[in-house]
């Protein structure tokens, strides 16, 4: 009985985080982006500095008509938003926020593999949407998504593999238990590669070629309306949360901090995740979109070699230590 209660409680907490954190990131993006551009951003919804803007947006999306194009592959089209969104919920389940068994939704032995594999599934949602929409722009967007996934999954996996080598385990909790502060400079290259590849996989600016609105309208999401469109947007922000959480856990030491790791470890995790989310927004505001060929060039000629170099460095240091 207590087992059932325990599982239910964990699921509820993870689900609540899954609903709240992406909205928090979205609202932060509204405000941070506005102030970085000398604006104020939303000021009315909810009364105080537009804190309820995303709630209002949600209400608006829910009121809109759910249109499926006549020539679309109906079932795939309708399924795509769920495929894009749900994997992030699953990944959130295995990210440890604090020390011990109590602070992770479900400790999985092959945590890294699980997280990265499931995150890859999320991109399938965009592919499905692009293919099923019966729209040229959607198809172009979907194909660009596929190309981007192929290019950036590799450096991301290599960078994660470097951490797994350093820790000698692929379990996320195991990696955090083995973490030492000097892993920060040791794995810094891997961290950068992982973070940048993750951004590209989320199709966040400056890697938003697949949805480049000035070229192909909104890529794979062109034909979507109402709630299904909102789910795609939510998937993007959930993706930011998951990417920042994973980067925190793998490279920044998760709940490790200068002090208070016993009781307040989860605060460290959330703080580091929030800082990374801010950086994600910051990059979006600062940089223009990469061209499709620049995108591919960055992945294959910069990130992959850097990730390989990181793995070599990890291996050498590992051998020297032993």
């Amino acid at each position, binding site marked *: 009985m207590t087992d059932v209660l325990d599982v239910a409680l964990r699921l509820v907490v993870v689900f609540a985080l899954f609903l709240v954190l992406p909205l928090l990131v979205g609202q932060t993006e509204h405000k941070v982006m506005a*102030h*970085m551009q*000398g*604006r*104020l951003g939303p*000021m009315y919804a909810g009364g105080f500095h537009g804190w309820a803007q995303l709630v209002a947006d949600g209400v608006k999306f829910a009121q809109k008509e759910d249109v499926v194009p006549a020539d679309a592959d109906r079932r795939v089209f309708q399924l795509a938003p769920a495929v894009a969104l749900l994997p992030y919920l699953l990944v959130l389940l295995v990210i440890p926020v604090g020390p011990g068994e109590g602070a992770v939704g479900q400790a999985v032995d092959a945590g890294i593999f699980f997280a990265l594999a499931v995150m890859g599934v999320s991109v399938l949602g965009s592919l499905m949407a692009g293919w099923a929409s019966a729209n040229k722009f959607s198809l172009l967007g979907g194909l660009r998504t596929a190309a981007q996934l192929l290019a950036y999954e590799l450096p991301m996996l290599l960078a994660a593999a470097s951490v797994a080598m350093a820790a000698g385990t692929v379990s996320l909790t195991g990696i955090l238990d083995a973490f030492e502060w000097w892993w920060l400079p040791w794995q810094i290259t891997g961290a950068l590669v992982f973070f940048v590849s993750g951004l590209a996989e989320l199709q966040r600016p400056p890697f938003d070629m697949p949805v480049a609105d000035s070229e192909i309208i909104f890529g794979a999401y062109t034909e979507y309306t109402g709630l299904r469109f909102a789910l795609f947007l939510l998937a993007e922000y959930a993706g930011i949360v998951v990417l920042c959480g994973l980067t925190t856990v793998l490279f920044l030491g998760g709940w490790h901090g200068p002090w208070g790791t016993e009781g307040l470890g989860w605060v460290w995790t959330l703080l580091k995740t929030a800082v990374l989310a801010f950086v994600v927004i*910051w990059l979006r505001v*600062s*940089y223009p979109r990469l061209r499709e060929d620049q995108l591919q060039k960055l992945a294959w000629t910069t990130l992959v070699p850097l990730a390989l170099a990181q793995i070599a460095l990890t291996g050498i240091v590992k051998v020297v230590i032993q």
Partner: protein
Amino acid sequence: MAPIPGSGLAKGLAVTLRTMTRKSVTEQYPDAQPELAPRTRGVIGLFEENCTVCMLCARECPDWCIYIDSHKETVPAATPGGRERSRNVLDRFAIDFSLCMYCGICIEVCPFDALFWSPEFEYAETDIHELTHERDKLREWMWTVPEPPALDPGAEEPKELAAARKAAEKLAAAEQLAAEERAAAERHAAADRPAPEEPAAGRSATGQPAAGDRPDGTRGDGKPAAGGPPAGEPPAGPGSPDERSSGEGGTA
């Protein structure tokens, strides 16, 4: 020196971060009134007391948005047996702000200072016909016309002030001159009385300052009347009026 690779990326991040720490430029208009520039072109106010119905504004208006109607009234003669005068009376003055392009030519061209820019801008209407505003509304807007902004610290003196000051200075100089003349005349009269034996010498000595005018009379007194005519009076008489009339000419 070649730029460090990636310095451009860092610069981009710095720009956005710096902007974030600064105050945003958004004006929350309906909640807070905007701070308008001193010469804001909001709406045109009519100071109808100054209007003489000369029609210059209506004729200069590039898009013909000013409507003026008037009639003539006869003013009875001011003095018995005089001629009756007629004057223009303004019946209608309207500006169609749906046509007005806010060029301000009517305000520039008005010779009687009857038109002014007002910063008032909240006069949107739901029907385009209601944008033609009549004289009462235009007169009301006159109350919103701000004082003309102060001149820059180093600016030239305003023309009307300069003219007034010059006139006042001329007047003061003329008065001083008159006072001196009066004093000289008194001294002349006083000098006449104690020295009746030498009337010619005394006359030429006191006549000199009046003719030579300006500086202190004592210096003129001390000087021996070398080139001075034996009778100082005749040249002195026309001399000072000349001076004064030229001064008046300068003032005018």
